[in-house]
């Protein structure tokens, strides 16, 4: 099935949603929002993508490994950013004095908080996508069909 309305709408909606989610992610330490909200918005755009391309092109569908790697990668980024403080002889997740900070109020002013927020965003987006995939496609099929 090749639905033109779905395809055209998703071509506009999905990049706009992802841009808004990225804005909320990157400005998490300056304005309302942050890792959780931005990650959910990006995850919702992934869900929209996998919903739309269920009905159009099967070969472009998101695999279960994608959400798995997003989740694991987000946690790894968080832990690695935290361990840098220990390597420099301070506490876990130390920010000041280890990471370079900029002018207050600007985007590059927070040291590693931006990095940690991006990790949380990837984790939350992967989790939301994983929940949806497991609910719609995965799991046991007692009757052998969906």
């Amino acid at each position: 099935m090749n639905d033109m309305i779905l395809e055209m709408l998703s071509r506009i909606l999905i990049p706009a949603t992802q841009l808004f989610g990225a804005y909320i992610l990157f400005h998490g330490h300056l304005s309302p929002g942050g890792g959780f909200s931005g990650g959910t918005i990006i995850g919702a755009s992934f869900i929209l993508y996998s919903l739309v391309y269920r009905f159009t092109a099967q070969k472009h569908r998101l695999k279960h490994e994608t959400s798995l790697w997003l989740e694991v990668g987000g946690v790894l980024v968080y832990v690695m950013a935290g361990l840098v403080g220990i390597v420099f002889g301070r506490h876990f997740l130390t920010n000041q004095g280890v990471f370079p900070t900029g002018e207050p109020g600007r985007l590059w002013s927070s040291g590693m908080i931006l990095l940690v927020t991006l990790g949380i965003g990837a984790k939350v987006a992967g989790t939301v996508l994983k929940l949806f995939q497991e609910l719609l496609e995965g799991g046991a099929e007692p009757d052998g069909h969906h």
Partner: protein
Amino acid sequence: MLAAINVLLLLFLVVCAVVVARTKDLLSATVIFGAYSMVMSIIWQQLHSPDVAITEAAIGAGATSLLFLAAISRTGRHEE
């Protein structure tokens, strides 16, 4: 004027909550629940907590509705 709008929003919230509980068609209930979350998000904004408002709009109106839709597509649309 603003207080009147807030009272209107809260009344709409109560009506939505009651209708969600009483609707037998689960797909309609999901859509009404999305409307409930959207109004709740505006109320959070009126209470000066924009962070919670963004999260409510993303989780309540977006992700939860989609998860409910997925669950309905795996089970049945009507409550018996």
